[in-house]
């Protein structure tokens, strides 16, 4: 079976699934969050996976998206659809400016710089109370169901909108991967010095990827704000809540691959939910501990990600069947 058949099958399944679920229930909420975080992992994957620029600051762009659209909605009654584009533009600009001081940094230093950047924005969001609502956070104004205002009582519309975003980001990823930009990014990933020598403008390549990734991440920030109706600086600029989670989802699934973040999100998000649902009424904190242990176990078993684990497993099965 060709990869595109897998894609088509997954997409059809994703489109059909909600018709079996309670539109305001828990399963569809978990699925929607899973799609959202899969999309976030995929957006991260554009810089983190293709170019191996491990960013721990993607919350910066996510938060810019959430705050921009919500502030525009509250103060100017501007549709979140427009706010979303404004947020994406702002995030792209931020990524562009951020790339100047960080471009020469590699590995851990780059990761730390991006982390610091998102922390700065979190502090700004916490302190600039008149605009951002400060630490108390922002509530998306309550409205009747409206596509223009991107607000629904039922979870199903959010599910499809976020599914659309995921598909969009996957397509962008695929196009970049197959394009000249993708090859240049891989050259940067393998050996930046060699890439430079053979004539790849590494700076430009990295900036392009960073800007695209940031803009897509901001789109997701807006969708998140509309979906959860409320957020505070910690929820959208949080290191653990967003930055690390985006990276973990992509890395655990298989960084640099299209299916990686999807697999990562479909394992991590439901796993966290199940751990919580099954264990939180027992000892306090047990669910988080179990979730953490499971992550450690997965990484110990296969550091290259679940995708490798899955394809190895299938290969072994087929061999077994033949023999």
């Amino acid at each position, binding site marked *: 079976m060709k990869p595109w058949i897998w894609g088509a099958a997954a997409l059809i399944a994703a489109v059909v699934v909600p018709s079996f679920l309670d539109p*305001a229930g828990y399963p569809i909420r978990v699925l929607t969050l899973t799609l959202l975080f899969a999309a976030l992992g995929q957006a991260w994957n554009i810089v983190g996976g293709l170019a191996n620029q491990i960013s721990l600051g993607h919350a910066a762009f996510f938060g810019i998206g959430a705050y921009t659209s919500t502030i525009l909605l509250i103060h100017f009654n501007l549709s979140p659809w427009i706010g979303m584009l404004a947020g994406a533009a702002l995030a792209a600009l931020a990524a562009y400016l951020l790339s100047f001081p960080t471009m020469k940094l590699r590995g851990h230093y780059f990761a730390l710089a991006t982390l610091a950047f998102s922390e700065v924005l979190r502090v700004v969001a916490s302190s600039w109370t008149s605009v951002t609502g400060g630490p108390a956070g922002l509530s998306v104004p309550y409205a009747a169901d409206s596509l223009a205002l991107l607000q629904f009582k039922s979870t199903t519309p959010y599910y499809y909108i976020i599914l659309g975003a995921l598909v969009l980001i996957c397509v962008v990823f695929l196009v970049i991967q197959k394009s000249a930009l993708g090859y240049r990014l891989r050259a940067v990933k393998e050996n930046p010095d060699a890439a430079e020598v053979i004539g790849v403008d590494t700076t430009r390549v990295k900036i392009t990827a960073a800007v695209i990734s940031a803009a897509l991440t901001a789109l997701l920030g807006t969708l998140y704000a509309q979906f959860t109706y409320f957020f505070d600086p910690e929820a959208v600029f949080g290191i653990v809540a967003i930055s690390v989670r985006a990276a973990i989802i992509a890395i655990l699934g298989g960084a640099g691959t299209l299916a990686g973040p999807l697999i990562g999100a479909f394992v991590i998000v439901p796993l966290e*939910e199940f751990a919580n649902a099954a264990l939180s009424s027992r000892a306090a904190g047990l669910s988080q501990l179990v979730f953490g242990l499971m992550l450690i176990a997965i990484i110990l078993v296969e550091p290259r990600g679940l995708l490798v684990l899955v394809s190895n497993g299938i290969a072994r099965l087929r061999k077994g069947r033949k023999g």
Partner: protein
Amino acid sequence: MSESKGHKTLSACRANRPESGFMPSGFMPSRRSVLAAGAATLAMPYLSRVSYAAGKDVNVGVVVPLSGANAQFGVNSRNGIELVADQINAAGGIKALGGAKINLVIADSTSTPTSAATVGQRLIAQNDVVAILGAYASSLTLALSEATERRGIPLMTMSFSDQITGRGFKNVFQIISKASTLGEAQLKGTAEIAQKGGETLKTIAIMYEDTAYGSSQAAGLRTTAKALGITVAMDEAYPLGITDVTPLINKLRAANAQAVFPASYLNDGLQIIRTMRQQGIKLPVIGGAGGYVIPDFKKALGDYAENVMSIAPGNYDQDPSLTDAFKKRYGYFMVHEALEHAVCLDVLAKALEKAGKADPNAVRETLHSTRFEGGWCNAMTGRAVKFDETGLNTLAKPLMVQWRGDNLVTVWPDEYAKGKAIWAGA
């Protein structure tokens, strides 16, 4: 849930993989395996469903932080709720419902608003809860209330934030005074206590953690200070989990204030007071509930805790005949979040008795229309609970409490005071 179920859910996730996207080409799963995986995906969310055999019981959701920064307060809250649930069940359950037992469905909100909303959604969709109690921290409650409001499930909370009942929601019930009222009372109470101690309060210092809780407390203090003509000589936010408080203390020394108001949960407040006292600053300290009114405060500070004051939305000395049961069972005094959550559940039980059916709509109507008296309501200031149309308990009055040895004594206002206030640092 059993262990084997845990395995099942994990394998369901794994079986889910072909759904998740494109595989590297070169393998060929059978159609059957794809179908099986698809079926597993569809079934996946249901595997976690917890089945409650006894159809007659009333499911009450409890969403509190059992992990993360606020875990301790979440556990306290859960203890208070469990105490009352056991009392009600031991006394024969909800009589109007044929002796139906209260069945608590407890979920960890963790410390992120999104999970608070998600677990709330889970309780509503899967456990048919008639109401939800929680979620202690204001940011968690705000996120949770967005879910409960849209599903029409009453949410009873003891979170402080003004926003909770300030959004026109119909399904949220705030059992205590809101943050701005608490902030106002904190300063008024301090001024009155100072007056009685022979000092007129003219300048104060405020330091607060940069969270919803800290900043709304500070805002209340600021506004009241203006209204009372008190100068705020220092007004500083600091990050939650601050590692070095020395700069704050240096500023405090320079500010020459008569009293200091550090609005923080626990650890930051401990650090601030310890550093102050070690440097010989004997200013009266007035805390904003949170970590100031739990046994750990005294345990961590020892003698430095003596005479530290705090605002509190309630205190266990208001009715020891009720709160002693908590101390007996858990070994520490009934902290206010345990007390107020206990009142929430007792009021809910009373509403169920009156409504005569375990239906969220009926419960909401009853909560809005009834004045609740007796039982745990006696432990509240006002000795009763009455919610206005926004869902705020109009009868709740803030208290000032002061540390005396291992106990917290209510010292203000006079009608609720159980001891005399002392205006002095340690």
